[in-house]
């Protein structure tokens, strides 16, 4: 199936203000990745939410709420969840997948152009 050309994000440049919408997109993306990381880790660990709650000294309802959707977790919350689930800690790296050119030019990128590799923003590091 052919893939439709779509506009792309481009890197911030100079002193140009980044739109609220773009920041909203990036924030939501990172919330999702953090959520995905924690829920995958929980599934892989085999422990229950009840056990996780006990490890964290929290009520099960509170943990269930945390894990119900990608939320705006504090960094401490992400840290606590990962460590409590599997003794893991987040490992951070900056990913740089965006083209450094205006979106109008980026839309013309041919599908045959070599694709940039991407890495997950945060991955668990076994402690």
């Amino acid at each position: 199936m052919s893939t439709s050309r779509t506009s792309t994000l481009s890197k911030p440049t100079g002193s140009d203000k980044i739109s609220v919408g773009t920041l909203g997109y990036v924030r939501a993306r990172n919330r999702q990745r953090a959520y995905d990381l924690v829920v995958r880790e929980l599934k892989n660990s085999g422990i229950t939410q009840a056990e996780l709650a006990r490890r964290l000294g929290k009520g099960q309802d509170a943990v269930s709420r945390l894990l119900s959707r990608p939320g705006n977790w504090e960094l401490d919350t992400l840290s606590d969840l990962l460590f409590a689930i599997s003794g893991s800690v987040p490992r951070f790296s900056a990913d740089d997948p965006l083209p450094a050119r205006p979106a109008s030019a980026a839309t013309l990128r041919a599908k045959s152009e070599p694709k940039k590799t991407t890495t997950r923003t945060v991955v668990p590091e076994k402690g």
Partner: protein
Amino acid sequence: MSIVTILFQLVNDERLHELQSLFTGDETARTMIVSPDILAAVSPPFPDNEEGRRLGELRAWLDGFMEGCELSVAEDPDRKPPDAMLARVHPVADEFWSIRVTEPEDTPGIRAFGAFGGKDMFIALTWERRELIGDQFNEAVSEVRANWRDYFRSERPFSGDHLDEYLTNFHAV
């Protein structure tokens, strides 16, 4: 004719569009097909205002889907938790679903409606701000049903017996 065969034609004719993740392009774990209306709404640049923030959230949801992120899925339209990310809508037998964008928290969010074309392939045809749907939710579902018929005629959405026939990497809520 299968849904996928029809989809090929619709995408080739640019009546529907296969979305690319803004960060990973077409290297995705799942497939998201969208209507021109949705494509226009979620294509950058996102406006520098509240509306842009909400549309950025919708785009992030769609990109997360394509990139195989974890989804919380509600199968019972009457018993879905408020935080469910994807939920069936009535009538269940018709196989239409609601994409539930519940962020930013200080807004009512956005709903997009569509159906599965196969495992890990969603076809999103309509969207609306939740506050504009109000209590006319059934009308919003009727709209997506009518849109589906326009595109797919008598072909019905994908149907499975269990959620793992629709999706990978999900948990039922």
